């Protein structure tokens, strides 16, 4: 069992539709993705060169980094385009009472 608690991060109504929204959580930047299969979340900074994925291009389930166009599948964090080669860190998400919650 994961001991990590669920934490409210943003109201569902405040999310950018079919796009990525940036959220600051403590000292961490989190990217929240509104996708056809629901809401997903990951660390916002790209694990290739540290660019902010929230300024990138988002299409379906793929977030593309604005600096080098490396890309990740937001459902499992898998890299889908070079120069991204390592999976990005994703978080478990759910919606409760109109709030997006992350286990973090």
């Amino acid at each position: 069992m994961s001991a990590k608690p669920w934490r409210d991060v943003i109201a569902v109504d405040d999310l950018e539709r079919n796009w990525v929204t940036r959220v600051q959580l403590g000292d961490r930047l989190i990217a929240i993705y509104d996708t056809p299969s629901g809401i997903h979340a990951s660390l916002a900074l790209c694990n290739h060169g540290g660019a902010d994925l929230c300024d990138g291009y988002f299409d379906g389930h793929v977030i593309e980094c604005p600096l080098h166009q490396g890309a990740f599948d937001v459902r499992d964090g898998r890299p889908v385009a070079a120069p991204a080669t390592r999976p990005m860190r994703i978080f478990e998400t759910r919606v409760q009472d109109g709030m997006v919650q992350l286990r973090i």
Partner: protein
Amino acid sequence: MPLTQALAEGKLTREELKTFMQRSDGPALRRLALWIMVLAGTTTLITLAWDSWLIWPAMFLHGIVLVHHFSIQHECVHYTVFRTRWLNDLVGQICGIIIMLPHRFFRYEHCDHHTYTQLTGKDPEQVPMPRSYGEYLLYLSALPYWKAKFTEVARHAAGRLSETERRFIPREEYATVIRDARVMLAIYALIFAAMALSGWWGLIWYWIIPVFLGEPVMRFIRMTEHVGRPSVAQMSENTRTNLVSAPWRFLCWNMNYHAEHHYVASVPFHALPRLHEKLRDHIHVEPRGYLGAHLDILRQIREART
């Protein structure tokens, strides 16, 4: 990152950015159709001029179009030509074969060009500022370029990567880069074998000589992007946007809007003119186009010598 900076400084709103970044397959497919028609036209010119000296200007013209496959490939590197991701990979690879530039290797190299734009010693694509007219002309001849490219492909095919390359290629991808170089050389060998077997050597006249004749034009254009601009990290300083006429914009897939491209590399070619309208006051623009950029470069050579 310049984009994050531009957003923070209000040069661009998030909504505008989102609109500019939207991808689709339509504009590129239409442009490619026109592209193929232009290629068919210049190919026909070579055929018509076959038995006369006019074949040389015809090959030069055709070569100018051929070397601009670099522009498509470059756009594919950024995945901005087509919304359908694999189409960018496919078209990029094909363009790479036409101009002998393995696609994935170029992609990794180009990443560092975007990270360290115009920073001497760090930008792997930096074209050095010529110190003399001789150096200037030598660069434009494309001889140093071809020497570097042939050495590079041969080195990769032999399984070796340089220190710098090891820095910008992810370790997991070393083998891919080496395999790509081998595949490219194998494709060329096959093409030559097919020509030898069939006795039809036409591709030398329709492809190989034109590419070599045309490459100086590509060098001329590539110089206008950064050469003569300061070696600093500010995107508004280190890159030049050149205002050029419609046929050149068609050929280079709007990459004359180079500073805009560096600001937001995720914006597709067809949205760059609109992005230019937003950013024009925040970047370095050369209104006289490619020629103006070269006048600027030549002036700097002259001034450095006196």
